[in-house]
């Protein structure tokens, strides 16, 4: 049996989703340049989880890696979705915010650093509530300040997706890359079902969830910039492209446009997801 080009491409494809946070960061940096900061052997662990009988991971679920992207200095902040759902606690939040703040300091001193956020997170870690929330506010502040110097690029790949206060971080970024498997929303489906009832949202209805907040829907309605295959090389190429191209005005600055497109929506009878693509899409 002879192999087809499609078959060969399929076999050659390397899933980005199957990589852990460390491997994802490595995949996006120029080969041989990955250098981890505040890694597992620094043992900066959660002071709060062991008090509640939860085993602390040595890197608290975030990998900060320096290196280069297309030869330019870069930093990648990669959230480990398999640890506590990628939730943001005190230490993991400080790693995210601290890395962005150091990138900002370098940019202000004339040494550009390319920041990349790999967002695989349910939002605030409830076991660390107020410290996680405060850290997310600091992440927001750092993104807005950094954007003045350099594009801030985010990737949401799945399968955890990007929720809670970190979904606002994704929306603040200059450039957002998503896969079909990704989900992006402020509140997780389970919480919406719990707070508003099954009629409002059935969290078990996967087709509905992806229709509302999946990567393809988000890109088609202007909430994400690029829809990419779950392929490590393809995603790395999109990240490089995002830095190479001139950055458009961030979507979170387009207030009048956002108000205008929401103005026509009936709050009691909003459009179906597919219809929203026609209303808000970028056209063919």
């Amino acid at each position, binding site marked *: 049996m002879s192999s087809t080009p499609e078959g060969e491409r399929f076999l050659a494809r390397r899933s980005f989703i199957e990589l852990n946070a460390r491997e994802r960061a490595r995949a996006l940096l120029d080969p041989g340049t990955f250098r981890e900061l505040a890694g*597992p052997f620094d043992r900066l662990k959660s002071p709060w989880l062991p008090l509640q*009988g*939860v*085993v*602390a*991971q*040595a890197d608290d679920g975030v990998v900060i890696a320096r290196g280069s992207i297309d030869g330019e200095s870069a930093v990648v902040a990669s959230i480990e979705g398999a640890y506590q759902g990628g939730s943001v606690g005190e230490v993991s939040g400080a790693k995210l915010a601290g890395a962005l703040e150091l990138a900002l300091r370098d940019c202000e001193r004339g040494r550009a650093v390319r920041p990349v956020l790999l967002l695989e997170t349910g939002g605030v870690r409830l076991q660390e509530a107020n410290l996680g929330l405060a850290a997310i506010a600091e992440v927001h502040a750092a993104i807005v300040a950094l954007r003045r110097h350099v594009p801030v690029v985010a990737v949401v790949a799945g399968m955890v997706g990007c929720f809670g206060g970190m979904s606002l971080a994704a929306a603040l970024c200059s450039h957002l890359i998503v896969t079909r498997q990704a989900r992006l929303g402020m509140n997780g489906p389970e919480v919406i079902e719990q707070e508003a009832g099954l009629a409002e949202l059935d969290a078990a209805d996967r087709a509905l969830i992806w229709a509302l907040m999946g990567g393809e829907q988000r890109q088609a309605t202007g909430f994400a910039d690029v829809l990419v295959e779950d392929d490590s090389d393809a995603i790395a190429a999109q990240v490089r492209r995002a830095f190479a191209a001139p950055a458009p005005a961030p979507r979170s600055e387009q207030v009048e446009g956002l108000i205008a497109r929401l103005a026509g929506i009936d709050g009691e009878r909003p459009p179906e997801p597919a219809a929203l693509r026609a209303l808000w899409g970028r056209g063919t």
Partner: protein
Amino acid sequence: MERLTFTYPAREAVARRVHVGVVGSGDLEVLLEPSADSDAHVAVTTSVDGFGTVWKHVLDRFFSRFEGAAAIEINDFGATPGVVLLASSRRRRRCAREQHARG
């Protein structure tokens, strides 16, 4: 949540440090680095209480083949003994590769 410690005699120095794994459900992470003394020391933090004997059996088997004076930290979220041994073997092979590469 339980913390368990073990000590094993060692015969060789350990040159590098190695980390594998994620503390996901049914999984664990392992950190290995040179011991402060000539023995191997293992510190296990596990979310599942009452399996001290199982951990000892698994580690006894591991150290029957591994002779490095290593300080090993294991953070476990309910991994089965099979998974633990697999992680340990991966770690041991990686350590051996790196020792070999250094000549």
